């Protein structure tokens, strides 16, 4: 089992979602985050106060997948999130020791891709 964490542009988030659904990824969790990378800074002014905004809005995907799903999932994200400009984001693949489906208490493989034969967890 792996946990894929992807940081993407908010304006690509819906495309990424779509691409993941096409790649048969059915479970995922999304949150709004802010990131700093190589992007040019925004300058904002509020009355006398001028500020450099170091952080840009991003969307974070968190997707638990079984090992053989990692490749297509990463592929789907890479393809759908890319614009080619600085700031497209990163993907991290983390090892997972165990996954539980809360509704049923099922673990691991069964917990993320129901119907798929159980594989050895890591």
């Amino acid at each position: 089992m792996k946990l894929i964490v992807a940081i993407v542009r908010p304006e690509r988030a819906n495309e990424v979602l779509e691409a993941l659904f096409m790649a048969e990824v059915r479970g995922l969790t999304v949150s709004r985050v802010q990131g700093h990378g190589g992007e040019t800074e925004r300058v904002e002014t509020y009355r006398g106060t001028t500020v450099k905004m170091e952080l840009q809005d991003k969307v974070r995907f968190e997707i638990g997948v079984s090992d053989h799903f990692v490749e297509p999932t990463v592929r789907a994200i890479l393809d759908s999130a890319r614009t080619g400009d600085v700031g497209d984001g990163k993907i991290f693949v983390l090892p997972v020791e165990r996954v539980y489906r809360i509704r049923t208490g099922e673990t691991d493989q069964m917990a993320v891709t129901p119907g798929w034969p159980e594989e050895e967890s890591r």
Partner: protein
Amino acid sequence: MIAQSPEPSAPDTVWMLVSTALVLLMTPALAFFYGGLVRAKNALNTMMMSVASLGIVGLVWALVGYSLAFGRGTGVIGGLEFLGLENVGLEVKGSIPHLLFMAYQATFAIITAALISGAIVERMRFGPYLAFIALWTVVVYTPAAHWVWGGGWLGSLGVLDYAGGTVVHVNAASAALAAALVLRPRRDYGRQALLPHNVPYVLLGAALLWFGWFGFNAGSALGATRTAALAFVNTFLAPAATMVVWMLIELARTGRATAVGVATGIVVGLVAVTPAAGFVSPLGAIAIGGIAAPLSYFTILWRSRTALDDSLDVVAAHGVGGATGALLTGVFARPEWGGSAGLIAGNARQVGVQLIGLLVVAAYSGLATALLIKLVNVVARVRSSQRDEAVGLDVTQHGEEAYTRGEGAVLVMPSISAPATRSTDESMRAPLEVPA
């Protein structure tokens, strides 16, 4: 200047003071109505498109527009005797101080320009927008107001427009249509869901619009008369009817009445009753409000399936609403209630006159608007860049965000405590520079 005689009517003056303030409030109300409907990253830009009109169009009207609209001129355009507020003082016009009449009319010019912005939100550069509404007021609004209200040819023809169904709403909607076509759709239009970021703001805007609209319609009586009372009550009943019909349509079609729908219904009802307010019976107003609901509703449904990115549906709300109201004024107007006779009172011709009025204004407004934007575009690109549109116009046009939290915001001028180290609080106890 304080002329000595005759005295203005005190009650009429009070009512027009109140009405002017009320109509002025409509423009910030519109800012919230429109601002709530766009995405958070464009909220301020959308609001500023309305709020800035208070300043830009306000001044343009006072210095130039008023004279061209209400100066004694030809049937086509007013005179120049009021340019720069020359000859506009505290002498009586009608029964109120002339200056107050000028200000009251200014509020109409301001909101008409602001209404257009609903069609072009989230994609127009702000500087060119300011230039556009200044020019538009002089080139489009002013003649239209003159034709119908300022002694011009449409008024002479017998067009009935109590408070601006044609001059304000059809006019703005036609300009909105032209502007939406010239500016082209937003980059995500039709592909992404572009949702309202704050529906309570939409409700707040609609509520304040309704509140202000009592000044708009009942103020158009220009005094504390029975007709003001009639226009007031009609302005209360028509949107009530529109809102109820709108909810019923929604409940019938989808099983759910929406808040955005109710807010929209209120505005459509207000628009529809505007040309009729002082001419028709309360039951007539209810009918007008009720009839306008399905027409606007289905126009919105249809429009959002087309390539026309009239983003906040100015055409469906103000165009369809205004035209419906203008035509139905020709149907329901009755001499007993203050209008000349309409269709029901036996004068079928009035409907035709109404139609001419709105077609003429719509045609002129659409054409002139398209040309004006193209003209402004020659000087400065009107459309924001794809990138700016993606980032949002608040940051790119105004250098601000509607909602900030300050994380990751680094002071560019750390002012006092020079090094941005973690200074102890003692550093703040240094002697202060105090202004003289």
